[in-house]
């Protein structure tokens, strides 16, 4: 009987910790992906400004309300614009940004192919 009580208490403590840890992980993942508008160059996670602290509370509240990660980003983008996210969307302002590495990779590949493969033949 004593053992059973002990096991139940043990399970309750660990189950609570487990769910909480998951929430905190997601919370810090989201706050690391958000840019602080007060101390620009720092993420919300790193910053200790009033604004950053409020955003952290808001993210925790939204997660409790059942918002998904993407919904939280969309919500904040709606309020502050896309700049708040560290992950830029693919649109007409960012074509160059997203396509340049692929383009460089292809050009680099072509140069290598020309220098080594075609020359050999």
């Amino acid at each position, binding site marked *: 009987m004593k053992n059973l009580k002990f096991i139940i208490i043990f399970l309750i403590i660990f189950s609570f910790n487990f769910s909480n840890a998951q929430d905190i992980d997601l919370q810090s993942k989201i706050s690391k992906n958000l840019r602080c*508008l*007060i101390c*620009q160059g720092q993420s919300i996670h790193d910053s200790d400004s*009033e*604004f950053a602290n*409020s955003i952290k*509370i808001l993210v925790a509240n939204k997660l409790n309300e059942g918002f998904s990660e993407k919904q939280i980003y969309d919500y904040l983008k709606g*309020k*502050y*614009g896309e700049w708040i996210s560290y992950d830029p969307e693919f649109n007409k302002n960012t074509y160059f940004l997203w396509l340049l590495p692929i383009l460089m990779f292809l050009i680099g590949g072509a140069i290598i192919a020309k220098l080594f493969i075609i020359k050999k033949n």
Partner: protein
Amino acid sequence: MKFKILPIFFTIIFLIIFLIFYKGLQNPNIYTPKNNIQKNIPSFKVRIFDTTNEINSKEIFKDNQFYLMNIWASWCVPCRDEHTFLLDLNDQKNIKIIGLNYKDNNRSAKKFLKELGNPYNVILLDEDGTIAIEWGAYGVPESFLIYNKKIIKKIIGPLNENLLQEIKELIE
């Protein structure tokens, strides 16, 4: 021929990169969110300052009436400077000023109002700063001019003589 193309190619690349960075030097590197003009006011439940009553934001802002929603705090120095302008604006008949007390201490806020005067029709309470986020604000002071439940002007930072004049012209 091969030796001539390479230096020209690198010079062009260098010039392009130089131009991009040179242009970048002239851009301001502080980002301010775009003014979300003509956006509907957010809907939220909020406590009224110094009471336990809660109110929905839609009940505060009525149609055909101008409102200035001002985010303030007693610890904010620029708020002190803009307070005279708010008192001045309060004398106008066709505008109501709504305050949002941002992350403040009740006693200091009351002292602040007692000392400088109270221009607000209603003061709402934002204890953790999440209501200011609903408005898309990121600091204090910030003000929003509202008409027909829409934000028609957003002011980041303290009010001044010019902005006050602009608001007066808008509400006439």
